[in-house]
């Protein structure tokens, strides 16, 4: 088949391909499908050991309802939103600014600052852990959403700067030159010329950062402790402790926790992939 388009092959091969696709997909997503199936089972099925047979009853609403009413999950979800959204906004503001500064201007240390952001972005979290935790404690922000948001903004700006700067680099320079000749101030150039052109980059990074921050677990457990500030990734582990062997509830909880980034991905697919594959095509 490779690299011949399947349309050019014999009908048999084409049918074969069409059949292979769903089979491959089911195998690939098997663990996930299993979790979704478990999440609609009843507790009864588990006590009698009916894990994979036909469910004796469908408990979709009961199980998912219990996730929302019988546990702190709503609070965790809310925390996740309140951590993720401000982070995304903060990162976008800071990184469009750095991208603009590093992409448009020539000055000493330009490359050095740019490389500092990139290198910092690759650093293992553990080398930051103790000092960042102390810093957050000192600022009185330990176990608060604000403490997490500030750190995430700072760290993710490193990654986004790379993307923003390269994106701005690829814009036609003549636009900026022309605006300068007209006597437009630099700040207005940023606001009225460059920013509108950056919409695709901003959209791409918004979804990407949303996913990264929503899925963060490490910093959640380092910088927060309890229900009041923990996001859903950390919360799910206490949920785990609460419903130890209630796999149907755990599964439902996991599906709920995983859903927002999945929805985000499906809504903004094109942008998401544009952000991820940055640099993969030249």
């Amino acid at each position, binding site marked *: 088949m490779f690299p011949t388009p*399947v349309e050019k092959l014999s009908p048999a091969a084409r049918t074969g391909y069409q059949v292979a696709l769903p089979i491959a997909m089911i195998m690939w997503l098997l663990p996930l499908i299993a979790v979704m199936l478990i999440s609609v089972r009843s507790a009864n099925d588990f006590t009698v050991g009916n894990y994979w047979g036909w469910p004796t009853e469908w408990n979709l609403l009961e199980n998912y309802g219990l996730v929302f009413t019988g546990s702190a999950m709503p609070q965790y979800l809310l925390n996740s939103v309140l951590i993720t959204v401000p982070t995304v906004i903060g990162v976008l503001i*800071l990184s469009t600014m*750095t991208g603009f500064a590093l992409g448009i201007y020539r000055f000493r240390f330009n490359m050095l600052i740019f490389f500092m*952001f990139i290198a*910092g972005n690759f650093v293992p979290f553990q080398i930051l852990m103790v000092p960042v935790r102390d810093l957050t404690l000192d600022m009185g922000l330990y176990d608060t959403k604000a403490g997490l948001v500030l750190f995430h903004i700072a760290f993710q700006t*490193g990654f986004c700067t790379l993307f923003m700067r390269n994106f701005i680099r690829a814009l036609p320079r003549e636009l900026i030159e022309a605006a300068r000749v007209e006597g437009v101030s630099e700040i207005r150039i940023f606001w009225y010329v460059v920013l509108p052109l950056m919409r695709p980059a901003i959209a791409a990074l918004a979804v990407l950062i949303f996913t990264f921050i929503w*899925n963060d677990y490490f910093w959640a457990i380092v910088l927060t402790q309890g229900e009041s500030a923990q996001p859903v990734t950390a919360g*799910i582990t206490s949920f785990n402790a609460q419903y130890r062997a209630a796999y149907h509830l755990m599964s439902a909880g996991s599906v709920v926790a*995983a859903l927002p980034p999945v929805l985000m991905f499906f809504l903004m697919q094109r942008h998401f992939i544009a952000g991820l594959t940055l640099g993969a095509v030249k």
Partner: protein
Amino acid sequence: MSSPAPAVPDTHPPVANRRGSYWKRNQIALTPWLFLAPAVFMFALYVIWPIAQSFNLSLYRWDGLGEARFIGLQNYEELWYDDAFYTSLWNNVLWLVLYLLAIPAGLFIAIFLNQNVRGIRIYKSLFFFPFVISQVVVGLVFTWFYDPSFGLLNIVLGWFGLGPVAILADSNLATYGIIAAGLWPQTAYCMILYLTGLNAVDPEQIEAARLDGAKGWRMLWYVILPQLRPATFIAFVVTIIGALRSFDLVSIMTDGGPFGSTRVLAFYMFEVALSEYGFRMGYGAAIAVVLFLIMLVYITFFLVKMYRDERAG
């Protein structure tokens, strides 16, 4: 206070405006710094400075609360004799090597999906699914998948008369089980990189190669792969970083066990510094420094490559 009368009549506008003109004259030089200041400040505070602090802290004995005591290189000396450290280091090597399987696996799936049939876009998105999901959820999902009493894996093994195996309870298998779970989202990521790369492959070159009689493996190796170089490079970088960052899965799936056999440096550091093993911040920092130095090799490699590209472009 009084200034001497100017020898030449002052043609400058009044002071208030002069500041404006200073800004006007220098705005091209000043603007980048203005735009960089907040981000550089935040980044320095939360990333650069903490790295230096961790290096420093690794020379102290500190429980996180009381007085820190300078002990020189003792933490590193202790590491040298620490079996748990070597287990973690060895597991990191395993991660680094096995995680790279995500690259060929991703390429394989990308080639498989790189067709124009009905509904293919949905398939591509569904294959990408695992990457969008939190590692915490991936960890939970795979823990159940491996479960010896009801996990799907053992049921499938049972069909072939094998098993059951308690992968995560077996200290010889647990790390491999976790890595396999990690490969799942990572392969999806590499797949997307290659799918994008394949989109940009030049059909004329394929035609030309076909006329020269190239097909199958030769086509892949000599014609397609060279054009996928940028995708391979990015896939390599993100996979290595992913391997060295592995923490979530270890923490969720085995919590380092059984008997510490699945620890990696990232996890061991956390365990030493922030768990019931005692708040040994200095010792934790020393482990983090080792991990950082390993990562530095790859960071340098990446930056050098980027620097060359910048120079060339």
